[in-house]
């Protein structure tokens, strides 16, 4: 049985496809202590939000890639996509607040037909917009003008590139992805992205290609900068290191490869109390394709909606009720507190 299967869990009718089954596995006692217990032992309970700085919209699960570590189980067969009506509810909620940053993710968010409208609306409201881009989408037929659109609207692009070599990148993201990613990065550079003085921000994201923690961010960023410049003439602003979450397709990989227990123990052993302060759930609200609200994109994929009486849908968005809400946690949260911490913008603390 291959360790990495092709296709989404849903398409393969995998028993891991339902969020409830993933949650049952990762939150069963025995392998690691409860996340809440560890917070309590460190005097960090209850975990609460500290205001909302990032309005993160997941516009759907459709993607042109099927990456081995994807926590969304995204792929070309996924039909869950945010409608114009829900996108409008997001803009309406945003309009009533002064949340400064809008983070658009997926899937490949650009494949949502409402993506460009959403960007234009957020920019009209003078918010900083971030696009979590898989790079290869920029080369798809029909998306030839996408990079130019992003540049025109001064969108920060946060691009997945797990490693500066073909072997590692293609093992995680699929055959041929590395070279297409390089081509897309060169296209972004040509528009000024990542170039000094342009104001067009191009950040890269590293996820480990396997069952281990990410390296120190600054050291790996220096390697990326040296190799990508030397080999391909590519410039970028920063590298974000993000720990792989034990959910969805990465959970399947862990279970199939016999790494699950060891990985969970590794995450829990590397628990860093200093990383708790900077957890992204504390300054982010995550909105699902159907408008439901979550503490983070990982909770979203586990179907763990905001709890403790906070409003559950973007149509009932109430920032005063959400600003200091209590965060819903489970054992996957160890993924964000291990070592130097992990968030949508990379490491959050010094290593433990």
């Amino acid at each position: 049985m291959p360790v990495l299967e092709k296709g989404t869990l849903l398409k393969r009718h995998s028993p891991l496809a339902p969020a409830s089954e993933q949650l049952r596995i990762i939150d069963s006692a025995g392998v690691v202590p409860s996340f809440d217990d560890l917070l309590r032992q460190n005097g960090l309970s209850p975990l609460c939000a500290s205001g909302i700085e990032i309005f993160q919209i997941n516009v759907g699960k459709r993607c042109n890639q099927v990456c081995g570590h994807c926590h969304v189980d995204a792929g070309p067969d996924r039909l869950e996509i945010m409608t114009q009506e829900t996108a409008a509810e997001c803009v309406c909620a945003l309009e009533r607040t002064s949340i400064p940053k809008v983070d658009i993710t997926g899937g490949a968010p650009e494949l949502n037909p409402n993506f460009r409208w959403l960007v234009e609306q957020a920019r009209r409201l003078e918010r900083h917009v971030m696009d979590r881009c898989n790079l290869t989408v920029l080369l798809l037929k029909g998306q030839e003008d996408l990079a130019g659109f992003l540049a025109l609207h001064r969108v920060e692009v946060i691009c997945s590139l797990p490693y500066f070599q073909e072997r590692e990148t293609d093992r995680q993201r699929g055959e041929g992805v590395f070279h297409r990613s390089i081509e897309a990065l060169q296209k972004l550079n040509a528009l000024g992205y990542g170039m000094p003085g342009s104001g067009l921000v191009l950040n890269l994201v590293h996820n480990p290609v396997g069952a281990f923690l990410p390296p120190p961010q600054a050291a790996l960023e220096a390697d990326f900068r040296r190799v990508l410049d030397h080999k391909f003439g590519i410039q970028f602003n920063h590298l974000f290191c993000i720990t792989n979450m034990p959910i969805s397709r990465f959970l399947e990989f862990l279970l199939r490869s016999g790494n699950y227990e060891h990985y969970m123990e590794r995450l829990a052993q590397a628990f860093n109390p200093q990383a708790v302060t900077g957890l992204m759930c504390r300054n982010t609200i995550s909105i699902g394709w159907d408008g439901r609200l979550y503490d983070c994109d990982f909770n979203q994929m586990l179907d763990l909606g905001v709890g403790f009486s906070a409003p559950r849908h973007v149509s009932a968005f109430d920032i005063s009720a959400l600003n200091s809400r209590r965060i819903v946690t489970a054992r996957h949260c160890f993924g964000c507190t291990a070592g130097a911490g992990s968030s949508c913008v990379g490491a959050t603390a010094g290593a433990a």
Partner: protein
Amino acid sequence: MDHYYCRHDLAKFSDMGKESPALWEKFLGWYNAVFAEGALSEREKSLIALAVAHTVQCPYCIDAYTTACLEKGSNLEQMTEAVHVAAAIRGGSSLIHGVQMRNIVEKLEM
């Protein structure tokens, strides 16, 4: 105990401090200081440790420092080169002892 080497025994390393905690603490303090960032980076030290692990042929060390190398950002190509360094030193060490063999032959032969 069916095998002398078991992966889960690696997690029991700290049990070696149970009967002599003072010595263990000294060892651990020194060990951690050795691997801290210094004139050499943590990644360089992990690659050295990986090479030495192959020279001393310690499966626990190979397991620990393979993971450590990956977690410090090294790739398989770099790690393979480090193992070749260890192998080259081992091979060279055997060969250089051939000089002793030659010295003895020189003394013994007519």
